[in-house]
């Protein structure tokens, strides 16, 4: 029983309850940082770290937090973890920190984090909440990496900064601008809902 619940908690955000293409959460950063694989990787690691640990922390405190001020406490905890990510990046990966600019700070507003805390961590035990946060982060991560893969390849002809497509390739500048993010995300959601999700329903 306990094991199946753990497994369910872990698998659901990856597939049928995916935060990005099912719940449509965290779209802001999905559009903003997916123009390069490297940026995206750092961003998703930051989000995974924050969702997992803030879900865990809130779950630990869940019986102590007065419900009237729970949003304030949640925001405070999330902000603390995000600042940790920001400070560590700034100190150890300054180039990456410069490229990501304001987006690291904006992890705070990523709806996935607040959403998982409100929907899950407030009712469940710390370890389970940690798994849920981590899995939601993973579900977010692989979708973003898939989008970044397409955008970087078509937009600059590179992957992870290495030239993949030859000089015959004309870069689709629109792919690395925000509209490109909208197009790729929409197509991805459509394809997944029409193929994988539809089979499940039938």
């Amino acid at each position, binding site marked *: 029983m306990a094991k199946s619940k753990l497994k369910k908690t872990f698998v659901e955000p990856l597939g049928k309850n995916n935060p990005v293409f099912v719940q449509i959460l965290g779209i802001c950063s999905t559009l903003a940082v997916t123009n390069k694989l490297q940026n995206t990787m750092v961003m998703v690691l930051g989000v995974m770290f924050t969702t997992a640990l803030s879900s865990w922390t809130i779950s630990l405190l869940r019986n102590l937090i007065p419900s009237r001020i729970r949003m304030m*406490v949640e925001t*405070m*905890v999330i902000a603390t973890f995000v600042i*940790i990510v920001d400070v*560590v990046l700034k100190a150890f990966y300054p180039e990456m920190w410069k490229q990501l600019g304001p987006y690291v700070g904006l992890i705070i507003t990523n709806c996935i984090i607040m959403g998982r805390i409100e929907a899950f961590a407030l009712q469940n035990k710390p370890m389970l909440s940690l798994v849920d946060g981590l899995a939601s982060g993973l579900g977010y991560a692989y979708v973003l990496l898939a989008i970044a893969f397409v955008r970087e390849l078509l937009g600059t002809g590179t992957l992870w900064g290495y030239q993949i497509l030859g000089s015959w390739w004309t870069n689709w*500048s629109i792919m690395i601008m925000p509209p490109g993010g909208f197009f790729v995300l929409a197509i991805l959601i459509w394809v997944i809902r029409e193929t994988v999700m539809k089979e499940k329903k039938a």
Partner: protein
Amino acid sequence: MKAKATFYQKRIYPIVFMFVVTVLCILITSGLYLTTQDRAVANELSFTRRAILDAGGLEYTPTTDGIEKAYLQEVTVEDGYYTAQSPEGTRYILPMQGPGLWGTIFIMVGLKEDLTTFSGLAIVSQNETPGLGARIEEPWFTAQFQGKKSPFTLVNEGTAKAPNEIDAITGASRTSEYFRNLTNRASSDAKRIIRGE
């Protein structure tokens, strides 16, 4: 829980709780900030030094140590600008800023002794459109200023030949224009600051 919460539960406890959480969070973040501050400052310094070396067209090994060594050896800080001794003569390096399409662009401009010919150029910070205007950070764009004489005129990307022509960026005409205006000011700024003309 009782149906009617006590005054303590309703009013005092939330405030105390929030206060405690806030203090804890501040302690954690400020502690981490203070322990990494030295590193962050060193990174910033190294970044600026690298921009100065790039603008002066000076050789260096692209590591933190390499940058520090080359900088300390070759660059002298003057009032509002830097000088460096390169094998081909003195280089004057001027920090400049000017408007871009979205925000202020900060650059380092390196000039040869005539204060008209560029020895190089480096972007310190910019907020232009990613994929379009932000391409001013790409190496080919900054490298093309080497050996060029201001004032510059913009030509289509990939067609610059004359010593006063600069490749604009396709799809970023406005950023290119702002950037041209900024670099065209370099020579007169340098003459004013360095020679008092």
